[in-house]
Protein backbone atom coordinates (compact mmCIF):
# COMPACT_ATOMS: atom_id res chain seq x y z
CA UNK A 1 0.00 0.00 0.00
CA UNK A 2 2.69 2.44 0.97
CA UNK A 3 4.65 1.90 -2.21
CA UNK A 4 1.73 2.72 -4.46
CA UNK A 5 0.95 5.75 -2.40
CA UNK A 6 4.52 6.99 -2.61
CA UNK A 7 4.64 6.35 -6.32
CA UNK A 8 1.66 8.56 -6.99
CA UNK A 9 2.61 11.47 -4.77
CA UNK A 10 6.33 11.68 -5.23
CA UNK A 11 6.44 13.50 -8.59
CA UNK A 12 4.53 16.54 -7.30
CA UNK A 13 6.97 16.67 -4.36
CA UNK A 14 9.87 16.76 -6.70
CA UNK A 15 8.42 19.60 -8.74
CA UNK A 16 7.64 21.78 -5.74
CA UNK A 17 10.74 21.50 -3.61
CA UNK A 18 10.53 25.05 -2.26
CA UNK A 19 7.33 24.87 -0.24
CA UNK A 20 7.30 22.44 2.65
CA UNK A 21 3.82 22.75 4.07
CA UNK A 22 1.85 21.99 0.87
CA UNK A 23 4.07 19.01 0.28
CA UNK A 24 3.34 17.50 3.66
CA UNK A 25 -0.35 18.24 3.37
CA UNK A 26 -0.44 16.55 0.04
CA UNK A 27 1.40 13.52 1.38
CA UNK A 28 -1.03 13.25 4.28
CA UNK A 29 -3.87 13.57 1.85
CA UNK A 30 -2.32 10.85 -0.26
CA UNK A 31 -2.11 8.46 2.67
CA UNK A 32 -5.65 9.22 3.76
CA UNK A 33 -6.77 8.80 0.16
CA UNK A 34 -5.16 5.39 -0.05
CA UNK A 35 -6.87 4.26 3.12
CA UNK A 36 -10.22 5.54 1.88
CA UNK A 37 -9.67 3.93 -1.49
CA UNK A 38 -9.01 0.47 -0.15
CA UNK A 39 -11.72 0.82 2.47
CA UNK A 40 -14.30 1.61 -0.20
CA UNK A 41 -13.09 -1.21 -2.43
CA UNK A 42 -13.38 -3.68 0.43
CA UNK A 43 -16.83 -2.31 1.28
CA UNK A 44 -17.90 -2.82 -2.35
CA UNK A 45 -16.66 -6.40 -2.26
CA UNK A 46 -18.53 -7.08 0.98
CA UNK A 47 -21.70 -5.63 -0.52
CA UNK A 48 -21.25 -7.65 -3.70
CA UNK A 49 -20.46 -10.93 -1.96
CA UNK A 50 -22.58 -10.84 1.18
CA UNK A 51 -25.87 -11.91 -0.44
CA UNK A 52 -24.08 -14.70 -2.32
CA UNK A 53 -22.10 -15.97 0.66
CA UNK A 54 -25.12 -16.14 2.94
CA UNK A 55 -27.20 -18.25 0.56
CA UNK A 56 -24.12 -20.37 -0.11
CA UNK A 57 -23.93 -21.15 3.61
CA UNK A 58 -27.69 -21.65 3.74
CA UNK A 59 -27.49 -24.26 0.98
CA UNK A 60 -25.49 -26.55 3.28
CA UNK A 61 -27.80 -26.23 6.28
CA UNK A 62 -30.45 -28.72 7.29
CA UNK A 63 -34.02 -27.52 7.63
CA UNK A 64 -33.61 -27.69 11.41
CA UNK A 65 -30.50 -25.51 11.22
CA UNK A 66 -32.22 -23.06 8.88
CA UNK A 67 -34.91 -22.48 11.46
CA UNK A 68 -32.61 -22.23 14.48
CA UNK A 69 -29.48 -20.45 13.20
CA UNK A 70 -29.06 -16.94 11.82
CA UNK A 71 -28.17 -16.18 8.19
CA UNK A 72 -24.62 -15.21 9.14
CA UNK A 73 -23.85 -18.47 10.95
CA UNK A 74 -21.86 -21.10 9.11
CA UNK A 75 -23.52 -24.48 8.56
CA UNK A 76 -22.53 -27.31 10.93
CA UNK A 77 -21.31 -29.42 8.02
CA UNK A 78 -19.94 -28.25 4.70
CA UNK A 79 -20.50 -31.70 3.27
CA UNK A 80 -24.26 -31.77 3.56
CA UNK A 81 -25.28 -31.98 -0.10
CA UNK A 82 -28.86 -33.09 0.57
CA UNK A 83 -30.35 -29.78 -0.52
CA UNK A 84 -28.49 -29.86 -3.80
CA UNK A 85 -29.77 -33.37 -4.45
CA UNK A 86 -33.34 -32.32 -3.62
CA UNK A 87 -33.10 -29.24 -5.80
CA UNK A 88 -31.63 -31.18 -8.67
CA UNK A 89 -34.01 -34.12 -8.64
CA UNK A 90 -37.31 -32.71 -7.37
CA UNK A 91 -36.91 -29.18 -8.66
CA UNK A 92 -36.80 -30.03 -12.34
CA UNK A 93 -33.26 -28.68 -12.67
CA UNK A 94 -32.21 -31.51 -14.98
CA UNK A 95 -34.96 -30.63 -17.47
CA UNK A 96 -34.05 -27.01 -17.00
CA UNK A 97 -30.40 -27.48 -17.89
CA UNK A 98 -31.27 -29.70 -20.87
CA UNK A 99 -33.81 -27.24 -22.27
CA UNK A 100 -31.51 -24.28 -21.70
CA UNK A 101 -28.68 -26.17 -23.39
CA UNK A 102 -30.78 -26.95 -26.45
CA UNK A 103 -32.11 -23.42 -26.80
CA UNK A 104 -28.64 -22.01 -26.22
CA UNK A 105 -26.98 -24.06 -28.96
CA UNK A 106 -29.67 -23.53 -31.60
CA UNK A 107 -30.23 -19.84 -31.02
CA UNK A 108 -26.53 -19.00 -30.82
CA UNK A 109 -25.90 -20.84 -34.09
CA UNK A 110 -28.80 -19.00 -35.64
CA UNK A 111 -27.57 -15.65 -34.34
CA UNK A 112 -24.11 -16.23 -35.78
CA UNK A 113 -25.47 -16.95 -39.23
CA UNK A 114 -28.07 -14.20 -39.37
CA UNK A 115 -25.64 -11.74 -37.78
CA UNK A 116 -22.69 -12.46 -40.06
CA UNK A 117 -24.88 -12.50 -43.16
CA UNK A 118 -26.39 -9.15 -42.29
CA UNK A 119 -23.03 -7.64 -41.49
CA UNK A 120 -21.55 -9.03 -44.72
CA UNK A 121 -24.35 -7.57 -46.82
CA UNK A 122 -24.20 -4.18 -45.13
CA UNK A 123 -20.42 -3.84 -44.99
CA UNK A 124 -19.38 -5.32 -48.34
CA UNK A 125 -22.12 -4.23 -50.71
CA UNK A 126 -23.32 -0.85 -51.88
CA UNK A 127 -26.91 -1.22 -52.99
CA UNK A 128 -30.07 0.77 -53.18
CA UNK A 129 -31.92 0.44 -49.91
CA UNK A 130 -28.77 -0.07 -47.86
CA UNK A 131 -29.31 3.02 -45.70
CA UNK A 132 -32.89 1.91 -45.17
CA UNK A 133 -31.84 -1.56 -44.02
CA UNK A 134 -29.17 -0.15 -41.72
CA UNK A 135 -31.71 2.28 -40.33
CA UNK A 136 -34.22 -0.51 -39.69
CA UNK A 137 -31.68 -2.44 -37.65
CA UNK A 138 -30.61 0.69 -35.77
CA UNK A 139 -34.14 1.75 -34.95
CA UNK A 140 -34.96 -1.72 -33.66
CA UNK A 141 -32.42 -1.31 -30.84
CA UNK A 142 -34.58 1.43 -29.38
CA UNK A 143 -37.71 -0.68 -29.02
CA UNK A 144 -37.96 -1.97 -25.43
CA UNK A 145 -38.33 -5.71 -25.92
CA UNK A 146 -40.47 -6.57 -22.91
CA UNK A 147 -43.33 -4.30 -23.87
CA UNK A 148 -43.63 -5.45 -27.47
CA UNK A 149 -44.28 -8.96 -26.17
CA UNK A 150 -47.87 -7.77 -25.88
CA UNK A 151 -48.08 -7.95 -29.67
CA UNK A 152 -45.28 -10.46 -30.34
CA UNK A 153 -47.26 -12.99 -28.35
CA UNK A 154 -50.02 -12.94 -30.96
CA UNK A 155 -47.50 -13.64 -33.72
CA UNK A 156 -45.80 -16.52 -31.93
CA UNK A 157 -49.20 -17.91 -31.09
CA UNK A 158 -50.39 -17.54 -34.68
CA UNK A 159 -47.33 -19.44 -35.89
CA UNK A 160 -48.19 -22.30 -33.57
CA UNK A 161 -44.96 -21.88 -31.62
CA UNK A 162 -46.56 -21.19 -28.24
CA UNK A 163 -45.43 -23.72 -25.64
CA UNK A 164 -42.59 -25.04 -27.76
CA UNK A 165 -38.87 -24.30 -27.34
CA UNK A 166 -38.97 -22.75 -30.81
CA UNK A 167 -40.78 -19.72 -29.45
CA UNK A 168 -37.71 -18.81 -27.44
CA UNK A 169 -35.34 -19.84 -30.21
CA UNK A 170 -36.85 -17.65 -32.93
CA UNK A 171 -37.07 -14.68 -30.57
CA UNK A 172 -33.46 -15.03 -29.43
CA UNK A 173 -32.25 -15.52 -32.99
CA UNK A 174 -34.35 -12.89 -34.65
CA UNK A 175 -33.80 -9.83 -32.58
CA UNK A 176 -30.13 -9.74 -31.73
CA UNK A 177 -28.95 -6.44 -33.08
CA UNK A 178 -25.99 -6.14 -30.75
CA UNK A 179 -24.45 -9.20 -32.41
CA UNK A 180 -24.82 -7.55 -35.81
CA UNK A 181 -22.97 -4.48 -34.58
CA UNK A 182 -20.14 -6.57 -33.19
CA UNK A 183 -19.78 -8.35 -36.54
CA UNK A 184 -19.98 -5.05 -38.42
CA UNK A 185 -17.23 -3.51 -36.33
CA UNK A 186 -14.99 -6.49 -36.80
CA UNK A 187 -15.68 -6.92 -40.49
CA UNK A 188 -14.63 -3.35 -41.16
CA UNK A 189 -11.13 -4.37 -40.06
CA UNK A 190 -10.90 -7.26 -42.56
CA UNK A 191 -9.23 -5.85 -45.69
CA UNK A 192 -11.45 -5.80 -48.74
CA UNK A 193 -8.47 -6.75 -50.89
CA UNK A 194 -8.92 -10.29 -49.57
CA UNK A 195 -12.43 -10.44 -51.02
CA UNK A 196 -11.23 -8.95 -54.25
CA UNK A 197 -8.32 -11.36 -54.60
CA UNK A 198 -10.64 -14.32 -54.07
CA UNK A 199 -13.11 -12.98 -56.59
CA UNK A 200 -10.34 -12.52 -59.15
CA UNK A 201 -9.63 -16.21 -58.64
CA UNK A 202 -13.21 -16.92 -59.56
CA UNK A 203 -14.88 -17.15 -56.17
CA UNK A 204 -18.43 -15.91 -55.99
CA UNK A 205 -19.90 -13.88 -53.15
CA UNK A 206 -21.11 -16.92 -51.23
CA UNK A 207 -17.71 -18.57 -51.40
CA UNK A 208 -16.13 -15.35 -50.17
CA UNK A 209 -18.55 -15.24 -47.26
CA UNK A 210 -18.16 -18.90 -46.37
CA UNK A 211 -14.45 -19.41 -47.02
CA UNK A 212 -12.93 -16.05 -46.18
CA UNK A 213 -15.17 -13.82 -44.09
CA UNK A 214 -16.64 -16.39 -41.74
CA UNK A 215 -13.30 -17.98 -40.77
CA UNK A 216 -11.72 -14.55 -40.25
CA UNK A 217 -14.60 -13.48 -38.06
CA UNK A 218 -13.79 -16.17 -35.49
CA UNK A 219 -12.81 -13.74 -32.70
CA UNK A 220 -16.02 -11.79 -33.19
CA UNK A 221 -17.96 -15.05 -33.22
CA UNK A 222 -16.34 -15.99 -29.91
CA UNK A 223 -17.41 -12.63 -28.47
CA UNK A 224 -20.98 -13.08 -29.66
CA UNK A 225 -21.13 -16.65 -28.34
CA UNK A 226 -20.08 -15.44 -24.91
CA UNK A 227 -22.34 -12.45 -24.50
CA UNK A 228 -25.27 -14.14 -26.22
CA UNK A 229 -24.70 -17.24 -24.14
CA UNK A 230 -24.88 -15.24 -20.92
CA UNK A 231 -27.99 -13.42 -22.09
CA UNK A 232 -29.84 -16.58 -23.13
CA UNK A 233 -28.79 -18.46 -20.00
CA UNK A 234 -30.15 -15.67 -17.82
CA UNK A 235 -33.28 -14.82 -19.80
CA UNK A 236 -36.38 -15.16 -17.70
CA UNK A 237 -39.40 -13.50 -19.20
CA UNK A 238 -39.49 -14.99 -22.70
CA UNK A 239 -39.44 -18.61 -21.52
CA UNK A 240 -41.80 -17.69 -18.69
CA UNK A 241 -44.32 -16.19 -21.08
CA UNK A 242 -44.06 -18.53 -24.04
CA UNK A 243 -43.21 -21.89 -22.46
CA UNK A 244 -45.45 -22.31 -19.41
CA UNK A 245 -45.40 -26.11 -19.62
CA UNK A 246 -43.46 -27.72 -16.80
CA UNK A 247 -41.53 -29.97 -19.19
CA UNK A 248 -40.28 -26.93 -21.04
CA UNK A 249 -38.81 -25.24 -17.99
CA UNK A 250 -35.45 -23.61 -18.60
CA UNK A 251 -33.19 -22.98 -15.63
CA UNK A 252 -34.67 -19.54 -14.94
CA UNK A 253 -38.26 -20.71 -14.95
CA UNK A 254 -37.46 -23.96 -13.11
CA UNK A 255 -35.79 -21.95 -10.38
CA UNK A 256 -38.67 -19.48 -10.34
CA UNK A 257 -41.08 -22.36 -9.71
CA UNK A 258 -39.09 -23.28 -6.58
CA UNK A 259 -40.97 -20.54 -4.79
CA UNK A 260 -44.18 -22.58 -4.79
CA UNK A 261 -43.41 -26.11 -3.55
CA UNK A 262 -40.27 -25.18 -1.62
CA UNK A 263 -41.77 -21.95 -0.27
CA UNK A 264 -40.90 -22.70 3.34
CA UNK A 265 -37.68 -24.57 2.59
CA UNK A 266 -35.24 -21.79 1.97
CA UNK A 267 -32.26 -24.12 2.22
CA UNK A 268 -33.44 -25.95 -0.92
CA UNK A 269 -34.14 -22.69 -2.75
CA UNK A 270 -30.63 -21.55 -1.83
CA UNK A 271 -29.15 -24.77 -3.19
CA UNK A 272 -31.07 -24.28 -6.45
CA UNK A 273 -29.84 -20.72 -6.80
CA UNK A 274 -26.26 -21.84 -6.17
CA UNK A 275 -26.59 -24.60 -8.78
CA UNK A 276 -27.71 -22.02 -11.32
CA UNK A 277 -24.83 -19.69 -10.46
CA UNK A 278 -22.04 -22.30 -10.63
CA UNK A 279 -21.87 -22.48 -14.46
CA UNK A 280 -21.77 -18.67 -14.55
CA UNK A 281 -18.90 -18.59 -12.06
CA UNK A 282 -16.94 -21.22 -14.00
CA UNK A 283 -17.50 -19.40 -17.29
CA UNK A 284 -16.44 -16.13 -15.70
CA UNK A 285 -13.24 -17.53 -14.21
CA UNK A 286 -12.15 -19.03 -17.51
CA UNK A 287 -13.38 -16.39 -19.92
CA UNK A 288 -12.95 -13.15 -17.95
CA UNK A 289 -10.96 -11.34 -20.57
CA UNK A 290 -13.34 -12.29 -23.38
CA UNK A 291 -16.35 -11.28 -21.34
CA UNK A 292 -14.96 -7.85 -20.53
CA UNK A 293 -13.97 -7.21 -24.13
CA UNK A 294 -17.20 -8.59 -25.47
CA UNK A 295 -19.32 -6.34 -23.29
CA UNK A 296 -17.22 -3.30 -24.09
CA UNK A 297 -17.50 -3.83 -27.82
CA UNK A 298 -21.16 -4.80 -27.58
CA UNK A 299 -22.31 -1.84 -25.55
CA UNK A 300 -20.68 0.82 -27.64
CA UNK A 301 -22.59 -0.36 -30.68
Amino acid at each position, binding site marked *: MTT*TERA*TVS*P*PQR*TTPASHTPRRRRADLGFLGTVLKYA*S*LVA*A*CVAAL*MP*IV*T*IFMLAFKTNEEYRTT*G*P*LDAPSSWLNFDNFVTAFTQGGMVTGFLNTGFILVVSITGTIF*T*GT*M*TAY*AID*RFRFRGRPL*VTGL*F*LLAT*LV*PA*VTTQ*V*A*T*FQIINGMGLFNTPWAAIVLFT*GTDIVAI*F*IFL*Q*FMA*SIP*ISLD*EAAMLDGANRFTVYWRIILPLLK*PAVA*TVVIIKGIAVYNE*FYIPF*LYMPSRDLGV*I*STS*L*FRFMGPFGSR*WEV*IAAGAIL*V*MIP*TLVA*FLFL*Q*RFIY*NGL*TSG*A*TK
Partner: protein
Amino acid sequence: MSIAPSAARQDAERPSTRPSARPRRRKTAGWGATPWLFLLIPLAFLVTFTYVPVANMFWYSVTDWDGLALEKGFVGADNFVSIFTRPEYFRVFAVSLYYLVGAGAQLILALYFATLLSFNTRFKNFFKGVIFFPYLLNGVAIGLMFLYFFRPGGTLDSTLAIFGLQDPPLWLGDPSIVNISLAATSVWRYMGLNFVLFLGAIQSVPSEQYEAADLDGASSWQKFRFIILPSIRRILGLTMILAVSGALSAFEMPYIMTGGANGSTTFVIQTVDTAFRFANVGLASAMAIVLLVIVLLITAVQRKFFPDEKATVE
Protein backbone atom coordinates in the same frame (compact mmCIF):
# COMPACT_ATOMS: atom_id res chain seq x y z
CA MET B 1 -8.96 -10.78 -27.29
CA SER B 2 -8.12 -9.77 -30.75
CA ILE B 3 -11.19 -7.75 -31.55
CA ALA B 4 -9.15 -4.54 -31.47
CA PRO B 5 -12.25 -2.51 -30.80
CA SER B 6 -10.77 0.94 -31.10
CA ALA B 7 -9.13 0.33 -34.45
CA ALA B 8 -12.15 -1.39 -35.88
CA ARG B 9 -14.47 1.29 -34.64
CA GLN B 10 -12.41 4.10 -36.05
CA ASP B 11 -12.47 2.35 -39.33
CA ALA B 12 -16.20 2.05 -39.27
CA GLU B 13 -16.66 5.64 -38.28
CA ARG B 14 -15.27 6.98 -41.48
CA PRO B 15 -16.01 4.47 -44.16
CA SER B 16 -15.78 7.07 -46.89
CA THR B 17 -12.08 7.48 -46.20
CA ARG B 18 -11.47 3.84 -46.85
CA PRO B 19 -9.47 3.84 -50.05
CA SER B 20 -11.21 0.86 -51.60
CA ALA B 21 -14.74 2.09 -51.08
CA ARG B 22 -15.00 3.71 -54.47
CA PRO B 23 -13.72 0.94 -56.74
CA ARG B 24 -15.81 -1.56 -54.82
CA ARG B 25 -18.98 0.28 -55.60
CA ARG B 26 -18.27 0.02 -59.29
CA LYS B 27 -17.40 -3.62 -59.11
CA THR B 28 -20.54 -4.67 -57.30
CA ALA B 29 -22.84 -2.79 -59.64
CA GLY B 30 -23.78 -5.93 -61.50
CA TRP B 31 -24.64 -7.85 -58.35
CA GLY B 32 -27.94 -6.21 -57.56
CA ALA B 33 -29.71 -9.19 -56.03
CA THR B 34 -26.83 -10.69 -54.04
CA PRO B 35 -26.98 -8.51 -50.92
CA TRP B 36 -30.68 -9.19 -50.66
CA LEU B 37 -30.04 -12.93 -50.67
CA PHE B 38 -27.82 -12.46 -47.63
CA LEU B 39 -30.38 -10.18 -46.00
CA LEU B 40 -33.42 -12.32 -46.73
CA ILE B 41 -33.51 -14.36 -43.53
CA PRO B 42 -32.24 -11.66 -41.13
CA LEU B 43 -34.74 -9.14 -42.49
CA ALA B 44 -37.55 -11.67 -42.30
CA PHE B 45 -36.75 -12.16 -38.60
CA LEU B 46 -36.42 -8.45 -37.97
CA VAL B 47 -39.69 -7.57 -39.63
CA THR B 48 -41.65 -10.49 -38.19
CA PHE B 49 -40.53 -10.13 -34.60
CA THR B 50 -39.91 -6.41 -34.27
CA TYR B 51 -41.72 -4.30 -36.82
CA VAL B 52 -44.91 -6.29 -37.28
CA PRO B 53 -45.45 -6.40 -33.49
CA VAL B 54 -44.83 -2.66 -33.21
CA ALA B 55 -47.23 -1.95 -36.08
CA ASN B 56 -49.80 -4.29 -34.57
CA MET B 57 -49.41 -2.53 -31.25
CA PHE B 58 -50.49 0.75 -32.83
CA TRP B 59 -53.49 -1.00 -34.30
CA TYR B 60 -54.44 -2.83 -31.08
CA SER B 61 -54.04 0.34 -29.06
CA VAL B 62 -57.15 1.91 -30.57
CA THR B 63 -59.28 -1.19 -29.94
CA ASP B 64 -60.70 -2.96 -26.92
CA TRP B 65 -59.33 -6.34 -28.01
CA ASP B 66 -58.96 -9.04 -25.34
CA GLY B 67 -56.40 -11.10 -27.27
CA LEU B 68 -58.84 -13.84 -28.26
CA ALA B 69 -61.98 -12.41 -29.81
CA LEU B 70 -62.15 -12.45 -33.59
CA GLU B 71 -63.52 -8.94 -33.71
CA LYS B 72 -61.70 -5.92 -32.40
CA GLY B 73 -63.94 -3.05 -31.38
CA PHE B 74 -62.63 0.38 -32.33
CA VAL B 75 -62.48 2.69 -29.31
CA GLY B 76 -60.41 5.58 -30.63
CA ALA B 77 -58.12 7.23 -28.12
CA ASP B 78 -60.00 5.88 -25.10
CA ASN B 79 -57.11 3.64 -24.01
CA PHE B 80 -54.66 6.53 -24.03
CA VAL B 81 -57.12 8.74 -22.18
CA SER B 82 -57.51 6.17 -19.41
CA ILE B 83 -53.72 5.76 -19.02
CA PHE B 84 -53.29 9.46 -18.37
CA THR B 85 -56.47 10.14 -16.41
CA ARG B 86 -57.09 7.13 -14.20
CA PRO B 87 -54.85 7.43 -11.16
CA GLU B 88 -54.25 3.70 -10.78
CA TYR B 89 -52.53 3.68 -14.16
CA PHE B 90 -50.73 6.93 -13.74
CA ARG B 91 -49.41 6.20 -10.27
CA VAL B 92 -46.96 3.59 -11.52
CA PHE B 93 -44.91 6.35 -13.14
CA ALA B 94 -44.04 7.46 -9.62
CA VAL B 95 -42.44 4.06 -9.00
CA SER B 96 -40.08 4.79 -11.90
CA LEU B 97 -38.67 7.68 -9.89
CA TYR B 98 -37.17 5.24 -7.38
CA TYR B 99 -35.44 3.41 -10.20
CA LEU B 100 -34.29 6.70 -11.73
CA VAL B 101 -32.65 7.69 -8.45
CA GLY B 102 -31.21 4.18 -8.27
CA ALA B 103 -29.83 4.55 -11.79
CA GLY B 104 -28.17 7.84 -10.80
CA ALA B 105 -26.57 6.24 -7.76
CA GLN B 106 -25.51 3.32 -9.93
CA LEU B 107 -23.72 5.57 -12.42
CA ILE B 108 -21.96 7.54 -9.69
CA LEU B 109 -20.82 4.38 -7.91
CA ALA B 110 -19.66 2.83 -11.17
CA LEU B 111 -17.72 5.96 -12.09
CA TYR B 112 -16.19 6.16 -8.63
CA PHE B 113 -14.95 2.57 -8.63
CA ALA B 114 -13.81 2.72 -12.24
CA THR B 115 -11.74 5.82 -11.43
CA LEU B 116 -10.27 4.21 -8.31
CA LEU B 117 -9.22 1.11 -10.20
CA SER B 118 -7.76 3.09 -13.06
CA PHE B 119 -4.99 4.21 -10.71
CA ASN B 120 -2.37 1.82 -9.41
CA THR B 121 -4.15 -0.62 -7.17
CA ARG B 122 -3.25 -3.88 -5.54
CA PHE B 123 -5.40 -6.89 -6.32
CA LYS B 124 -6.88 -4.86 -9.15
CA ASN B 125 -8.22 -7.84 -11.07
CA PHE B 126 -9.73 -9.31 -7.95
CA PHE B 127 -11.62 -6.11 -7.13
CA LYS B 128 -12.67 -5.69 -10.73
CA GLY B 129 -13.97 -9.24 -10.92
CA VAL B 130 -15.90 -9.08 -7.66
CA ILE B 131 -17.54 -5.76 -8.44
CA PHE B 132 -18.47 -6.92 -11.92
CA PHE B 133 -19.56 -10.49 -11.21
CA PRO B 134 -23.16 -9.81 -10.05
CA TYR B 135 -24.00 -8.54 -13.53
CA LEU B 136 -23.48 -12.02 -14.97
CA LEU B 137 -25.79 -13.81 -12.57
CA ASN B 138 -29.17 -15.21 -13.44
CA GLY B 139 -31.96 -12.76 -12.61
CA VAL B 140 -34.11 -15.35 -10.88
CA ALA B 141 -31.18 -16.48 -8.72
CA ILE B 142 -30.57 -12.84 -7.79
CA GLY B 143 -34.25 -12.37 -7.02
CA LEU B 144 -34.37 -15.38 -4.70
CA MET B 145 -31.09 -14.37 -3.10
CA PHE B 146 -32.43 -10.92 -2.27
CA LEU B 147 -35.75 -12.27 -1.06
CA TYR B 148 -33.67 -14.07 1.55
CA PHE B 149 -31.47 -11.01 2.07
CA PHE B 150 -34.44 -8.73 2.81
CA ARG B 151 -36.77 -11.14 4.63
CA PRO B 152 -37.47 -10.58 8.31
CA GLY B 153 -34.55 -12.09 10.21
CA GLY B 154 -32.63 -12.41 6.92
CA THR B 155 -29.14 -11.35 6.02
CA LEU B 156 -29.76 -7.60 6.17
CA ASP B 157 -31.56 -7.70 9.51
CA SER B 158 -28.85 -9.89 11.03
CA THR B 159 -26.13 -7.58 9.78
CA LEU B 160 -27.91 -4.54 11.18
CA ALA B 161 -28.32 -6.35 14.49
CA ILE B 162 -24.53 -6.71 14.74
CA PHE B 163 -24.34 -2.93 14.63
CA GLY B 164 -27.01 -2.71 17.29
CA LEU B 165 -29.90 -1.71 15.05
CA GLN B 166 -32.98 -3.55 16.27
CA ASP B 167 -36.55 -3.45 14.95
CA PRO B 168 -35.74 -3.14 11.27
CA PRO B 169 -38.67 -2.36 8.93
CA LEU B 170 -40.23 -4.89 6.58
CA TRP B 171 -37.96 -4.28 3.62
CA LEU B 172 -40.29 -5.84 1.08
CA GLY B 173 -43.57 -5.63 2.99
CA ASP B 174 -43.74 -1.94 3.73
CA PRO B 175 -45.08 -0.03 0.70
CA SER B 176 -43.00 3.01 1.59
CA ILE B 177 -39.75 1.01 1.52
CA VAL B 178 -40.30 -1.81 -0.95
CA ASN B 179 -39.33 0.26 -3.99
CA ILE B 180 -36.12 1.41 -2.35
CA SER B 181 -35.19 -2.21 -1.63
CA LEU B 182 -36.01 -3.28 -5.17
CA ALA B 183 -34.16 -0.36 -6.76
CA ALA B 184 -31.15 -1.19 -4.57
CA THR B 185 -31.29 -4.76 -5.83
CA SER B 186 -31.24 -3.46 -9.39
CA VAL B 187 -28.22 -1.29 -8.57
CA TRP B 188 -26.49 -4.35 -7.11
CA ARG B 189 -27.21 -6.27 -10.28
CA TYR B 190 -26.39 -3.73 -12.99
CA MET B 191 -23.67 -1.53 -11.51
CA GLY B 192 -20.94 -3.94 -12.57
CA LEU B 193 -21.69 -3.45 -16.26
CA ASN B 194 -21.42 0.34 -16.10
CA PHE B 195 -18.29 -0.01 -14.03
CA VAL B 196 -16.57 -2.25 -16.58
CA LEU B 197 -17.59 0.00 -19.47
CA PHE B 198 -16.23 3.08 -17.69
CA LEU B 199 -13.04 1.29 -16.73
CA GLY B 200 -12.52 0.16 -20.32
CA ALA B 201 -12.94 3.71 -21.59
CA ILE B 202 -10.61 5.15 -18.97
CA GLN B 203 -7.93 2.57 -19.66
CA SER B 204 -7.99 3.30 -23.37
CA VAL B 205 -6.39 6.67 -22.53
CA PRO B 206 -2.68 6.43 -23.38
CA SER B 207 -0.64 6.20 -20.18
CA GLU B 208 1.64 9.02 -21.39
CA GLN B 209 -1.15 11.44 -20.58
CA TYR B 210 -1.11 10.39 -16.94
CA GLU B 211 2.67 10.49 -16.85
CA ALA B 212 2.66 13.98 -18.29
CA ALA B 213 0.06 15.01 -15.74
CA ASP B 214 2.22 13.56 -12.97
CA LEU B 215 5.20 15.55 -14.17
CA ASP B 216 3.09 18.68 -14.15
CA GLY B 217 2.10 17.95 -10.58
CA ALA B 218 -1.55 17.25 -11.22
CA SER B 219 -3.62 16.01 -8.30
CA SER B 220 -5.84 12.95 -8.55
CA TRP B 221 -8.87 15.20 -8.82
CA GLN B 222 -7.29 17.15 -11.67
CA LYS B 223 -6.47 13.92 -13.46
CA PHE B 224 -10.05 12.83 -13.06
CA ARG B 225 -11.45 16.16 -14.19
CA PHE B 226 -9.17 16.81 -17.17
CA ILE B 227 -8.12 13.37 -18.41
CA ILE B 228 -10.63 10.76 -17.29
CA LEU B 229 -13.88 12.67 -17.63
CA PRO B 230 -13.32 13.83 -21.23
CA SER B 231 -12.23 10.34 -22.24
CA ILE B 232 -15.46 8.75 -21.09
CA ARG B 233 -17.84 11.46 -22.24
CA ARG B 234 -19.26 9.33 -25.01
CA ILE B 235 -19.71 6.17 -23.03
CA LEU B 236 -21.14 8.25 -20.20
CA GLY B 237 -23.78 9.67 -22.52
CA LEU B 238 -24.65 6.23 -23.82
CA THR B 239 -24.81 4.73 -20.35
CA MET B 240 -27.02 7.52 -19.10
CA ILE B 241 -29.60 6.90 -21.77
CA LEU B 242 -29.48 3.17 -21.14
CA ALA B 243 -29.87 3.78 -17.41
CA VAL B 244 -32.83 6.11 -17.85
CA SER B 245 -34.68 3.86 -20.27
CA GLY B 246 -33.76 0.90 -18.07
CA ALA B 247 -35.27 2.68 -15.06
CA LEU B 248 -38.48 3.43 -16.95
CA SER B 249 -38.79 -0.15 -18.13
CA ALA B 250 -37.75 -1.77 -14.82
CA PHE B 251 -39.36 -5.16 -14.79
CA GLU B 252 -37.43 -8.27 -13.94
CA MET B 253 -36.33 -7.70 -10.35
CA PRO B 254 -39.72 -6.46 -9.05
CA TYR B 255 -41.60 -9.07 -11.08
CA ILE B 256 -39.52 -11.94 -9.74
CA MET B 257 -39.30 -10.69 -6.16
CA THR B 258 -42.70 -9.25 -5.36
CA GLY B 259 -44.77 -9.74 -8.50
CA GLY B 260 -45.74 -6.09 -8.14
CA ALA B 261 -47.22 -6.46 -4.66
CA ASN B 262 -47.20 -3.75 -1.95
CA GLY B 263 -47.10 -0.88 -4.40
CA SER B 264 -44.04 -2.12 -6.29
CA THR B 265 -45.83 -2.39 -9.64
CA THR B 266 -43.77 -0.76 -12.36
CA PHE B 267 -45.06 0.44 -15.69
CA VAL B 268 -43.92 -2.69 -17.51
CA ILE B 269 -45.36 -5.05 -14.89
CA GLN B 270 -48.62 -3.15 -15.24
CA THR B 271 -48.45 -3.52 -19.02
CA VAL B 272 -47.84 -7.26 -19.11
CA ASP B 273 -50.40 -7.87 -16.37
CA THR B 274 -52.97 -5.86 -18.30
CA ALA B 275 -52.26 -7.91 -21.40
CA PHE B 276 -51.80 -11.41 -20.06
CA ARG B 277 -53.56 -11.50 -16.71
CA PHE B 278 -56.49 -9.17 -17.33
CA ALA B 279 -56.70 -9.92 -21.08
CA ASN B 280 -56.90 -6.32 -22.16
CA VAL B 281 -54.51 -6.31 -25.10
CA GLY B 282 -55.85 -3.01 -26.42
CA LEU B 283 -55.09 -1.07 -23.26
CA ALA B 284 -51.76 -2.87 -22.78
CA SER B 285 -50.71 -1.94 -26.32
CA ALA B 286 -51.51 1.68 -25.62
CA MET B 287 -49.32 1.50 -22.51
CA ALA B 288 -46.49 -0.11 -24.47
CA ILE B 289 -46.71 2.69 -27.03
CA VAL B 290 -46.55 5.34 -24.33
CA LEU B 291 -43.34 3.76 -23.04
CA LEU B 292 -41.94 3.41 -26.55
CA VAL B 293 -42.57 7.07 -27.28
CA ILE B 294 -40.96 8.16 -23.99
CA VAL B 295 -37.87 6.05 -24.71
CA LEU B 296 -37.62 7.44 -28.24
CA LEU B 297 -37.94 11.00 -26.92
CA ILE B 298 -35.20 10.45 -24.36
CA THR B 299 -32.96 8.97 -27.03
CA ALA B 300 -33.58 11.95 -29.28
CA VAL B 301 -32.68 14.34 -26.46
CA GLN B 302 -29.52 12.37 -25.75
CA ARG B 303 -28.52 12.44 -29.43
CA LYS B 304 -28.89 16.18 -29.31
CA PHE B 305 -26.61 16.58 -26.32
CA PHE B 306 -24.10 13.89 -27.22
CA PRO B 307 -23.89 14.12 -30.99
CA ASP B 308 -21.60 12.01 -33.18
CA GLU B 309 -22.53 9.07 -30.99
CA LYS B 310 -24.02 7.32 -33.94
CA ALA B 311 -21.22 7.66 -36.43
CA THR B 312 -20.14 4.14 -35.50
CA VAL B 313 -22.26 2.23 -37.97
CA GLU B 314 -22.32 4.95 -40.52
